[in-house]
């Protein structure tokens, strides 16, 4: 699905990653952890091509990201659902339109998939809030809406950046179970989180692997979690 080969990334200040090689196999469930500021979000951004690797190669669905045109990137993003840390909604559109946004921008008729949308909003427990504007929702509701938007295109890969960052434990359990359910449906999942309790809870439900960012590199964490 997504493959990194000897990837390095550096920004003005210095080098964040050095020589990372990693392969996300179809149907796998990964956690990405490490202290905050270590580059978890940056790592995800390399995966959904918001950032380009300074050296090495990022291959998305078999194609070299650095060789893709802007339209190629747009089309590939439709196959990657991303749950952003800060959700990134269009605040002037109601929740239902925001969740359906990937369909809209892909030129698909959102009204033709209204049944899908309703089912999806039910699944994340937001069917009562379809007409609410994003700023009117609570943190947990926004996170669930972001998850709904990430999966509406039925993507092959779902990347979630601190999806439980500002929700309580109970809500993070609900989000986790939604992600686990998606993984059982065959989606490749990667969740960046610093919440070790969440990872432990997940390991009870799914065969998740844990990647830790350390010393500018990504390592497979041991069984200590």
């Amino acid at each position, binding site marked *: 699905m997504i493959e990194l080969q000897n990837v390095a990334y550096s920004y003005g200040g210095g080098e964040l990653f050095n020589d990372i090689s990693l392969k996300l196999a179809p149907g796998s469930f990964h956690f990405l952890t490490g202290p905050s500021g270590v580059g978890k979000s940056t790592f995800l951004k390399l995966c959904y091509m918001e950032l380009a690797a300074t050296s090495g190669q990022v291959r998305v669905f078999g194609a070299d990201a650095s060789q893709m045109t*802007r339209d190629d990137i747009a089309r590939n*993003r439709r196959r990657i659902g991303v749950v952003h840390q800060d959700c990134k909604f269009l605040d002037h559109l109601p929740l239902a339109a925001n969740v359906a946004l990937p369909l*809209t921008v892909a030129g698909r008729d959102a009204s033709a998939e209204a049944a899908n949308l309703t089912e999806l909003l039910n699944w994340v427990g937001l069917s009562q809030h379809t007409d609410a504007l994003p700023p009117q929702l609570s943190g947990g509701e926004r996170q669930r809406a972001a998850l709904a938007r990430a999966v509406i*295109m039925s993507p092959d890969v779902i990347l979630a950046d601190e999806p439980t960052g500002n929700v309580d434990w109970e809500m993070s359990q609900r989000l986790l179970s939604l992600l686990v359910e998606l993984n059982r449906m065959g989606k490749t999942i990667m969740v960046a989180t610093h919440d070790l309790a969440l990872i432990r809870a997940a390991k009870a439900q799914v065969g998740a692997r844990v990647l830790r960012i350390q010393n500018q590199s990504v390592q497979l964490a041991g069984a200590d979690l």
Partner: protein
Amino acid sequence: MNQAIVALRALFVGDVHADRVVPPTGYTAWLTLFVSGAMAFLAVFALALSLATGRLADRWSSELARSSTLRISAPSGQMAAQTQAALEVLRTTPGVASARALDEAEQRALLEPWFGPDLPVDSLPIPQLIEVIEDNDGFDAEGLRQRLAGEAPGAVLDDHTRWRTPLVKAADRLRLLGVISIILIAATTAAMITLAANAALAANLQVIRVLRLVGARDVYIARAFVRRFTLRALVGAGVGTVLAMIAVAILPDAQAAGGFLTGLGFQGVHWLLPLLIPPLAAIVSFWATRTAALRTLGGMT
């Protein structure tokens, strides 16, 4: 061709959902409308000016070119004979449609504005004037002068070229100024629309970023902006053009006063020309917004 139709249809009919993804903008919309309206208004006047001066130049050169004057200054004894000889020369000159010696009353009428009505023309050594009307081909002025020098030595041919040329040149220059004004107006419109579009793009940077992240292609995002600005420019320019055309139509008729003002306006099919201004404004706006949008998008991932 089909693609172009689909693109045009998308532009005008639009996609309700695509339109909604960019939040509505309040006052920049009105500014764009106002700017395109004002620019169209000015463009109509620049167009009227260049068309009117163009007509003026044509009229001056054709009317004056078709008539010339022969002036015969001779001692009173030879006047009649020389006039007769000159008329004979003119009659046999190819390109001269008619030639006629002005009679006394006509000559007096010509002098009246300068010397008053009571001028005793008889007692003054006034030259005899002969009005020469050319046919369409015109005559060879130099050849005529040489023949006249032999037959009627007191005759001087004035084919009006001397004072016609600077007038026509002035009118042509005015027409050029009008054309330059129209080009400047179009360029200014493009510049202002670009500024407005850049403001709208900057205000919606967050929206654009979100659209990119959920997989929108550049053309999709650009279209949302391009459509708005194109329609605003079209509507604004339409209103401005209609108002300016009404203003030109009700310009007081200066026929009596004569002169240059007489012709400022449109005649006949020229009334259709200003109707090109709104579509041209829309094209300028389309191009300016699209360029601005794609440039902004090129700067983000």
